[in-house]
């Protein structure tokens, strides 16, 4: 018998189109509703049918927010799943499923609990119910609430008619009873404490958090051209467009998408584009226009491995350099990289105030890992989000590019006020008309690239130090690796190791330098060159002593980071 306590990971694996997503949804929602903390993340192939996709669901008595390599319970829906995840399987892994989906050579290495999923599904009426039965088994093993499964199925399949809902409920029940039976017979033992609090918490994905944050920040226009993994944000926004009274437009290409958004900002709207590396590459021309015309813009850039089409559905922190250097000429930009779902919400909201205030491109750097991660979180404090508008009226004599001390010219918009607003992507005078005057060119360049940048730097928040200030070792991480590194440090259990996490990547506040003095610096990044470590070197002259890098398109796991830290520190 295998016993699991307090924190375990359930992995479902099957082909694209086999409906694992439904199982994932049933499990995350109903286990949360049953009072467990849940976390889910998926990895999938770039294909619509076939292949192998897996989803990891962690179920825990404590909050869990990080990807782990180990698999405690594995449910394969087809042959080939076990070889695909073989480096994640150990002797304590319990595999629940049909014999034909488990390759011979694994039978000795695992605990196999055979369940006749197909037969049970056919008993209910069709092969189609296999997923719901499997979900029911897992809920049963956790003694989760069957009523929650029923409610979910009603909501999910309600539009397909009573019969479909009824059959699915029947299937879930059959699975549930089998799960309870497995427990009773002692085939598997699961002891995870429930927390009443988790029950009513919010279950949200990274993509949803970006979209909701943008909406809270006043986004009323979103244009995009579909590209994984950034599309989730557009899907969510489109589905709520009417309720929110916003425009969501699928453009003919990324070039059009960002230019529409620039036009919308010019006319006073808060606009965003959502894209990934290849799409952002096409947007760089317009990024320069935003720089020269001082046109605000918010760009959500969900990273995936490159170059070119790379690995379309996988993850990497490989586009920081692109975000830093895209565009021609010198102009400031702001780059944010949320560490978790909460930050994805708050920073996406804040991006609009920043773009509005500084009139620069604000890039929200997420990645496939973050946008596809789900977990329950206690609350999103909506009153923490303040929409700060910086639009002035065009009074007679208005000058769009007035030279000011801090490099920020008051921005008026067409139709608000009596005078006109002239914006320009050519070098210009204070009114916005073309100039080739050398002295004015110098002043305009300095206004944008020096004075404004300085103003932004001065107001940039510092990174977050998690751990003691006098720790000897500083782990530097940015963006979505936050909780993975945090959990690894926790497991390492040494108080001379602290995490310095950056979710504001650029421009860096000069004061951030103080965190590094006299420390052994370990940079952790999901790319091959250590792009952020290079940025630290360039900005602060700081050299990371060790770089822990991964670049196979998969996220870091807690175990990998722990192993790497042990290697470096001990």
């Amino acid at each position, binding site marked *: 018998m295998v016993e699991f306590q307090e924190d375990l990971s359930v992995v479902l694996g099957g082909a694209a189109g086999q409906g694992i997503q439904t199982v994932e949804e049933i499990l995350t*929602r109903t286990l949360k509703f049953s009072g467990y903390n849940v976390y889910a993340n998926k990895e999938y192939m770039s294909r619509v049918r076939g292949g192998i996709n897996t989803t990891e669901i962690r179920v825990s008595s404590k909050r869990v927010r990080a990807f782990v390599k180990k698999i405690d319970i594995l449910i394969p829906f087809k042959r080939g799943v076990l070889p695909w995840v073989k480096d994640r399987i150990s002797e304590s892994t319990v595999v629940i499923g049909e014999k034909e989906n488990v390759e011979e050579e694994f039978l000795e290495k695992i605990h196999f609990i055979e369940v006749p999923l197909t037969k049970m599904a056919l008993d209910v009426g069709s092969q189609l119910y296999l997923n719901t039965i499997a979900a029911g088994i897992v809920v049963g093993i956790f003694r989760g609430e069957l009523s929650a499964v029923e409610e979910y199925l009603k909501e999910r399949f309600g539009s397909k008619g009573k019969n479909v809902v009824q059959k699915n409920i029947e299937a879930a029940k059959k699975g549930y009873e089998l799960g309870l039976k497995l427990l009773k017979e002692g085939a598997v033992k699961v002891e995870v404490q429930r927390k009443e609090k988790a029950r009513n918490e*919010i279950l949200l994905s990274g993509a949803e958090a970006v979209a909701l944050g943008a909406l809270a920040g006043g986004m009323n*226009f979103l244009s995009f051209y579909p590209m994984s993994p950034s599309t989730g944000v557009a899907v969510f926004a489109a589905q709520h467009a009417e309720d929110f009274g916003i425009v969501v437009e699928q453009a003919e290409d990324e070039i059009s998408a960002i230019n529409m958004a*620039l*036009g919308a900002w010019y006319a006073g*709207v808060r606009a965003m584009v959502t894209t990934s590396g290849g799409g952002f590459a096409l947007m760089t021309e317009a990024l320069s*226009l935003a720089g020269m015309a001082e046109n605000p813009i918010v760009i959500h850039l969900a990273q995936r491995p490159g170059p070119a089409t790379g690995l379309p559905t996988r993850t990497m922190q490989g586009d920081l350099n692109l975000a830093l250097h895209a565009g021609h000429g010198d102009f400031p930009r702001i780059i944010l990289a949320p560490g978790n779902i909460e930050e994805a919400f708050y920073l996406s909201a804040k991006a609009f105030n920043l773009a509005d205030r500084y009139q620069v491109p604000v890039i929200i750097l997420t990645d496939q890992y973050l946008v596809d991660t789900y977990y329950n979180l206690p609350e999103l404090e909506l009153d923490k989000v303040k929409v700060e508008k910086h639009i002035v009226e065009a009074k007679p004599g208005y000058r769009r590019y007035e030279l000011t001390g801090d490099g920020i010219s008051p921005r008026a918009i*067409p139709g608000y006020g009596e005078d006109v607003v002239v914006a320009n992507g050519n070098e210009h005078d204070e009114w916005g008309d073309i100039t080739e005057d050398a002295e004015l060119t110098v002043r305009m360049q300095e206004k944008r690239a020096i004075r404004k940048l300085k103003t932004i730097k001065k107001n940039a928040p510092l990174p977050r130090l998690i751990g003691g200030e006098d720790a000897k070792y500083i782990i530097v991480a940015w963006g979505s690796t936050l909780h993975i590194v945090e959990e690894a440090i926790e497991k390492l259990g040494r108080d001379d190791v602290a995490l310095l996490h950056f979710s504001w990547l650029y421009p860096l506040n000069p004061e951030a330098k103080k965190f590094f003095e006299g420390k052994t610096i370990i940079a952790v990044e999901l790319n091959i060159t250590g792009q952020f470590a290079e940025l630290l070197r360039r900005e602060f002259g700081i050299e990371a002593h060790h770089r822990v890098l991964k670049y196979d398109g998969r996220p870091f796991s807690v175990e990998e980071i722990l192993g790497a830290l042990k290697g470096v520190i001990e």
Partner: protein
Amino acid sequence: MNLPKGREAFEPKRPGSKDVAWCPGCGNFGIRNILISALTELGLRPSQVAIISGIGQAAKMPHYINANGYHTLHGRAIPIATGVKVANPELTVIAEGGDGDMYAEGGNHLLHAIRRNPGITVLIHDNQIYGLTKGQASPTTMKGMKTPTQPWGVFEEPFNVIALAIALDASFVARTFMGYFRESVEIIKKAIEHKGLAIVDIFHPCVSFNKVNTYAWYREHTYWMDDHDPYDREAAFKRAIETDPLPLGVFYINEKPTFEELVPAYKRDKTPLWKREPKVEEIKKILDIKRRL
């Protein structure tokens, strides 16, 4: 300070707008006068108009007219103008540029703007040549014309934009020659007043680089369609493929809903987007669902 009214209102007083970069004798001056007359006769004020231009000699227009303006990038005027219009449908939005700007670098945007049908007016200064970059062929350059970069003579088929736009069922398609002042003012007024996307191809001579399509050439090789019904698509298409003489006038009108009318954002509420505040109660609703299940 009182801002001037009428035609005078559209004359810019800004220091930078005095230094006009167009060559003496260029057709762009005529187009400027036509546009100012059209805007004035429509009773518009500079603050109600936004002229979004791409890049090229033609695209310098926002600097020589007193109206809201955005001089953007080569080929990108249309998507930007679309964003402006949907942000604030109360504005009169004009996208303006040359034939290279609108048909070459921005060709794809023009095609998709026809599908999208935003309520903007697209004015193409069609001099059948690239002016600003000094005389290379454009998509409308006539076959056989020799240029510094096509010394063997252009052999590509010129772009028939009128036929293309009618084929795509565009909302308003017209062509004029800036040498005909009054007629051009009337066409541009119609285009601006038209609810959907209005495309006006405006012939204008480039006195510096196009020695073929001169003022006299346009007069000799064009005629006005006096007996044409612009609501008849087939007739419009027949006219569109005539080559010599080239017909002038409104080829085709197809009244249909605009982009701004169709987007869900304006279904229940006509307030321009830019005046709207975030709907916090909707976010709360979504979070409640995410809490429940």
